[in-house]
């Protein structure tokens, strides 16, 4: 129990401090290794357009992990919502309908995952690996393995809203990601729903005894995850001007890495949206940093692996020392 408020504050935000320092150190190393690349604005501009695609699902995943669950299905959720969006847009040309359709599809997939986990009782990691294969397979059947061309969408107002460039440099998707992060941050830290997520993940028995509707909370976490995946899928389609059947597949590693680097507890009950966002930035700049330092692209995964294991170990050690 600390008496000096400054030290108490530092102690309280130690996870956030640790991750911010890690990001700073990485930036300094990359700038020293390749000053031409990392001292020019253009690399940061491209980070702003690519990182949000997996940062938005990572924010949703933070909620799922806090309530003690896992969602391995989300790459297929992104692809399926993207498919619904593209299909509706090419068939009707109606932007609002396409967006609503995609959001409903994503939320419904998440909701189904939640039902399987909560009502039937299948452990979430197994259930969602199953549904990931199912939805990916269904997508392939529906599109016959072919991409959907969305040419023309980059001239529509949709593009300005979801994938435009503010002042010619800052991507709309980055602004969406920041907005979502702030909202979810408030939800997790200052709303009764966030509180219910924390207690459900920490100690389900206690949560139940104190009147938290545990089943409903878990199902809604999966549904919210589906909703955020749909947003990511829609933005990806609009930014690229096409939908492709393997959409979302590369994000599995990136999303989990962002969440766990960010200090969200592997055991549930605790999580930080700020941490997840900084984690996503770290993961997003690693590849560029490695390539521009002149190393082969094969190093990227190795470095991802090291960062994940080291940060997860660090947090476990910190959590142990913080408990008496």
């Amino acid at each position: 129990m600390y008496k000096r408020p400054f030290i108490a504050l530092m102690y309280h935000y130690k996870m956030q401090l640790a991750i911010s320092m890690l990001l700073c150190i990485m930036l300094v190393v990359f700038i020293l290794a390749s000053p031409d690349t990392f001292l020019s604005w253009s690399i940061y501009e491209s980070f702003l357009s690519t990182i949000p695609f997996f940062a938005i699902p990572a924010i949703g995943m933070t909620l799922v992990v806090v309530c003690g669950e896992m969602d391995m299905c989300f790459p297929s959720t992104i692809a399926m919502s993207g498919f619904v969006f593209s299909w509706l847009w090419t068939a009707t040309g109606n932007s609002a309908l396409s967006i609503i359709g995609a959001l409903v599809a994503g939320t419904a997939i998440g909701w189904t995952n939640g039902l399987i986990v909560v009502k039937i009782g299948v452990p979430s990691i197994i259930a969602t690996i199953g549904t990931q294969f199912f939805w990916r397979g269904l997508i392939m059947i529906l599109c016959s393995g072919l991409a959907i061309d969305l040419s023309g969408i980059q001239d529509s107002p949709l593009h300005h809203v979801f994938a435009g460039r503010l002042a010619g440099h800052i991507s709309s998707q980055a602004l969406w990601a920041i907005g979502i992060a702030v909202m979810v941050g408030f939800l997790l830290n200052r709303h009764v729903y966030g509180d219910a997520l924390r207690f459900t993940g920490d100690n389900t028995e206690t949560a139940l005894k104190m009147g938290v509707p545990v089943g409903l909370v878990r199902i809604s976490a999966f549904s919210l995850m589906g909703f955020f995946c749909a947003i990511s899928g829609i933005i990806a389609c609009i930014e690229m001007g096409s939908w492709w059947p393997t959409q979302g597949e590369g994000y599995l590693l990136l999303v989990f890495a962002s969440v766990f680097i960010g200090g969200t507890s592997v055991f549930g009950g605790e999580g930080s949206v700020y941490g997840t966002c900084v984690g996503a930035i770290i993961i997003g700049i690693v590849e560029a940093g490695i390539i521009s330092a002149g190393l082969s692209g094969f190093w990227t995964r190795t470095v991802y692996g090291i960062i994940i294991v080291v940060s997860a170990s660090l947090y476990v050690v910190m959590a142990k020392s913080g408990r008496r």
Partner: protein
Amino acid sequence: MSFILRLNHISKSFGAVLALKDVSLDLGDNEILGLLGDNGAGKSTLVKIISGIFPPDSGSMCVNGETIDFRRYSGARSRRFGIETVHQDHALAEKQPLWRNVFVGRHLKNGLGFIHAAEEKRETLKLLHNVIGLPAEGLDPDLPASVLSGGERQGLAIGRAMYFQSHLIILDEPTTALSLHETEKVLGFIKKIKEAGKACIFISHNIAQVFAVADRCVVMDRGEIVADESKNEMTLESLTKLLISFNRRQEILHV
């Protein structure tokens, strides 16, 4: 004296096993009742009926003068009637800050469901100071519940129940896994329930602990109330003899 709880001819069986046999019990609104008995005597079955975990097969129950309709009674409803059960293991979530543990499920919030965190932290500090007796200076409501000792955790759960105006607090074996020092603390918290003008049912195996704080002791044996004596009618010796005599009777019957 008015009654917080009146049980009339409650019976409950599980399959062929008769767990409660025609149990009737009245509890005053500021009475600390010690509920004693061996394993399988029916103590927990009785408490579970009171706190709405399951209904009895027959009999009736009044809480605060209101007759309970068991078809619409549940754990959540029992809390609305002012009955709160404190379990030793599941009282708190360890990683959560103290203030979240006090207010979980009952947050002070605005119309949109956002929590008034600053106010909850202030109230938590008061509660930690007044009920558990921790020094107010340097205490941080943001610390996780795991910083509290076993006895203090029971204290926080008891203080929480009192803060939310529970009329009847049921303690289910609150001292089983605690050291002597921690047990003393919990007995102190039970005295605070008395001072606050609330009622309490204290379930225990330990006669000495019950005798130290209870106004009245009820002994159960194989689903029946076999003794019901107020504190001035008994001594620790007479209570011990009584319990031993029932255990003997049980042994003789088993042979």
